[in-house]
């Protein structure tokens, strides 16, 4: 049986679903018998899901406008040197 420490070392690959079937089965066996590690796996998975679900805020209009203006200046400068 996997120790809790070994479980932690494998956690990232487990959550990213990049473990072989055998390692995966060992992890799943461990968390089915170890409530603490079950909580760690579950709350870490939720942490990742919550961060992934964050949409970026739309950027302020003036920042967008300044970006476009800087691009126009860049284009003018590139035309002059080519």
């Amino acid at each position, binding site marked *: 049986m996997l120790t809790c420490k070994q479980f932690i070392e494998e956690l990232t690959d487990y959550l990213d679903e990049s473990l072989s079937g055998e390692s995966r089965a060992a992890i799943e066996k461990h968390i089915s018998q170890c409530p603490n590690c079950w909580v*760690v796996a579950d*709350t*870490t998975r939720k942490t990742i899901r919550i961060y992934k679900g964050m949409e*970026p805020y739309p*950027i302020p209009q003036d*920042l967008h406008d300044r970006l476009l203006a*800087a*691009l126009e200046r860049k*284009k003018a400068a590139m035309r002059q040197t080519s």
Partner: protein
Amino acid sequence: MTTPTSPVFDELALVERARAGSSEAFASLIRQYEGKIFRLAMNITQNREDAEDVLQETFLSAYEHLDRFRGDSKFYTWIVRIGVNEALMKLRKRKQDKSVSLDQEIDTGEETMVREIAAWGENPEERYSREELGGILDKVVQSLPPSFRTVFVLRDIEELSTEETAEALNLSVPAVKSRLLRARLQLREKLTRFFKLKGDDTFAYL
């Protein structure tokens, strides 16, 4: 079959048109990705003024070097890599006299210690408004050391692969994995205060 209202964002065609000189096409690429690049820049630099510079420098540099984009990766992956480099340069400049190293592997063995064990509900984030939640998530991610934070931001927020993250940060794949693990564990631990089920006590193990 694609229709004109197809939700598929045909970025390769846009890049081609931008390369041929279409301002409109490059403006579409900006609109598509500016929010993500700005968020990335804020997350890495943690400084509004720096993040605004990074946003601008990223798109200007992308425009200038558009002919280097090969089309074998996604345009987003390509521009994120430019953005990461710009942001890291800013961060290094800010931290120069504060002896913070981005490259050094900090391994005290402490980071994989788990102290708080408390179950969360199914959708613990629903307890907070969008603004509150955004504030909590930002604050918590900013408390990570820069070397962990950058890896987490690229892997779990910007959703780059482990290999793409390693390439963007000039790290080995095992280094990315090890930092990602510690970043995730630290975030999980810090978020437990906000997301744990009411009445569920926390205790230490490991």
